[in-house]
């Protein structure tokens, strides 16, 4: 299923329509052949394919990501296109990878054959990792729109640009936060565990946590647990952590598993100081919706904290998104809006669709919150190998049913509750 923003509708060819077409063709030919006075520069069309999953297990992310791109590109076109390119319009096409890696790679190659200005790959970390060397070899600008894998930028150092922070950056925020809050409150953890789902994303997070935790001499790593995201029962592992008196559980997971783990923690009355997620499934609206009060006090490192919607710099855009798609601005859609903003900004600065000029323009991106549709709190600035160096992640906590930034200080809107209140003590 492809969605073309400018799908022509073909109807029966009437005589009037034929004559109109013939006159237009003749006029164009005449203008091209020697009537410079009446010739106007026809604005070019900028083709941008977006490969993401609109169906399949994580369709939510793909749908919202593509909506973010759609919102910005439609708005840019409505405002007269890319001004430095004489009002060139953006034609985008969304390809559905079904969140299957083989389909994703086929579609990315298909997109590559369609003479794109930029390819947006927004399905998975693994898909971006596999495609990055291909983009590098074929010299195609590759926006890794939805992937937290840590090795993606290095796999395509010149032509791949990772919009997200790597999950290692987010894990680092989680570990730093625990250190900081322990220092502030005097309540420091001793025993920690790491849980991660066993796909590329989760494993990247798990590996990052292992390195970071190993540096903490005061902590004892009790267990590292890798599991399938479709696992249906976590009671045994949580019982083990409860028996081992684990203080903090660091996680990198998807939606269903993050929900089940929290419900199991509540069921077994497992009372650590905190369970902390790194973006992923615990950073979705579904996590809050399905868990209700059980999600209260959960910590998660986010790229886009929900309360940022109210920031005056992006509120009009957030409201516009919500009015059009009936959902608040959140993780995947904010990444889509920001990614589209980066492309628009680079096109304006490059004043060209030449891939080398455009690539250089993207590489020199330096945008802050509110610039050119950027809704990331930290903005966008690419490092040497196309990694977004501006993003560092924000610790959020679920308080009264919503997520609020609680650390670092410059973003915090509420004070963190540390440690969690015991389940038995909660109202």
């Amino acid at each position, binding site marked *: 299923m492809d969605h073309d923003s400018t799908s022509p509708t073909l109807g029966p060819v009437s005589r009037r329509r034929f004559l109109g077409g013939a006159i237009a063709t003749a006029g164009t030919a005449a203008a091209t052949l020697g009537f410079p006075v009446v010739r106007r520069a026809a604005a070019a069309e900028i083709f941008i394919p977006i490969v993401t999953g609109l169906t399949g297990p994580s369709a939510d992310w793909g749908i919202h990501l593509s909506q973010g791109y759609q919102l910005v590109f439609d708005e840019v076109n409505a405002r007269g296109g890319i001004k430095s390119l004489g009002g060139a319009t953006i034609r985008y096409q969304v390809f559905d990878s079904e969140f299957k890696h083989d389909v994703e790679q086929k579609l990315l190659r298909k997109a590559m054959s369609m003479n794109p200005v930029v390819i947006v790959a927004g399905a998975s970390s693994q898909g971006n990792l596999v495609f990055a060397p291909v983009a590098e070899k074929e010299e195609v600008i590759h926006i890794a729109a939805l992937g937290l894998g840590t090795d993606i930028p290095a796999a395509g150092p010149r032509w791949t640009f990772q919009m997200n922070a790597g999950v290692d950056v987010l894990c680092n925020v989680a570990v730093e936060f625990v250190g900081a809050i322990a220092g502030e409150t005097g309540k420091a953890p001793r025993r920690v565990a790491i849980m991660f789902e066993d796909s590329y994303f989760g494993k990247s997070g798990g590996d990052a946590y292992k390195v970071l935790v190993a540096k903490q001499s005061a902590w004892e790593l009790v267990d590292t647990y890798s599991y399938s995201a479709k696992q249906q029962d976590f009671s045994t592992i949580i019982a083990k952590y409860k028996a081992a008196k684990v203080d903090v559980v660091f996680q990198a997971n998807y939606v*269903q598993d993050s929900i089940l783990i929290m419900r199991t923690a509540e069921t077994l009355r497992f009372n650590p100081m905190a369970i902390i997620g790194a973006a992923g499934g615990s950073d979705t609206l579904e996590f809050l919706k399905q868990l209700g009060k059980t999600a209260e006090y959960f910590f998660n490192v986010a790229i886009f904290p929900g309360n940022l919607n109210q920031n005056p710099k992006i509120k009009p855009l957030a409201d516009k998104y919500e009015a059009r798609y009936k959902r608040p601005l959140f993780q995947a859609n904010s990444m889509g809006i920001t990614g589209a903003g980066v492309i628009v900004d680079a096109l304006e600065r490059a004043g060209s669709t030449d891939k080398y000029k455009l690539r250089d323009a993207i590489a020199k991106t330096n945008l802050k919150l509110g610039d050119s549709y950027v809704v990331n709190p930290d903005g966008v600035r690419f490092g040497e190998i196309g990694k977004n160096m501006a993003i560092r992640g924000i610790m959020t906590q679920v308080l009264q049913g919503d997520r609020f930034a609680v650390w670092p200080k410059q973003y915090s809107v509420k004070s963190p509750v540390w440690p969690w209140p015991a389940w038995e003590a909660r109202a």
Partner: protein
Amino acid sequence: MPDLPVVWQALVSGILMGGIYALVAAGFTLIFGVLKIMNFAYGEFVMLGMYATFLAYTLGGVDPYLSLALVLPAFFLLGIVVQRLLIDRILDAPDDMQMILTFGLLILISNLALFFFTSDLQGIRVGYLDRIITFGGTFFRSSLLYAFVWALGLLAATYLFIRRSRLGRAVRATADDRFAARVVGLPVRAVFWITFGLGSAIGAASGSILLPYLPASPDRGFEFTLLAIIVVVLGGMGSFVGALVGGLAIGLTRSLGQVFISAVLSDALSLFVVLVILLVRPAGLFGAKVARDVAI
């Protein structure tokens, strides 16, 4: 040596999950035992059962277990329709054709579910099913305990129906020898319809009773099919008792394996157990040489 409370928790969780696994596998084994087809779309009926109960609860406030009064007959009829329109046509076709058809059905149903229900997880939280029960130092949700009890109840009811009723006898006779059943005048084709309908209804019912514990999503179906295949291969194709024992064995292997061997290897361990049992008993624990012992 692991802590005793952890072992105890794993044991209780394994038994509770195992009972549900058994019910999930029961419909699959019934269909295989009689029709001799590997129905890869079976898990989709489990998933659709979840959605049916979700709709009944959210739109009409119907208790998830009361919704079984709607789900069972509705999916029985749906199963009959699927059997008559699709499965009937490939019963005598080569095995690969049967696989292709049921796989096609799997893809169709899961994408229809995706279209109508979106990829959002859809769960329900019902007060009396959301209580936390403590038992001998173990903890579990009331939803899991209820699901286990309902699973055993439905298994027992199906078992008695197959064993004690005239129709059940016809089903067993058809499973035993299709040709002989025709010779003695049994309406074999109608038995097929009823069997597929019953198997589909059991699958959907297992989805209904699972919903308060596990949210529904369109991609859930295949994991249930896979689970059913593992349980049924272990217990023996076409055996009801095998499905029960197989379900409990998988549940316990997964949970106790996390305690005694490795949390990471527990899933692999359950498959290893299946492999070992198949080496010793190729027909599974309770399977006959040809699947002919439905409900024995």
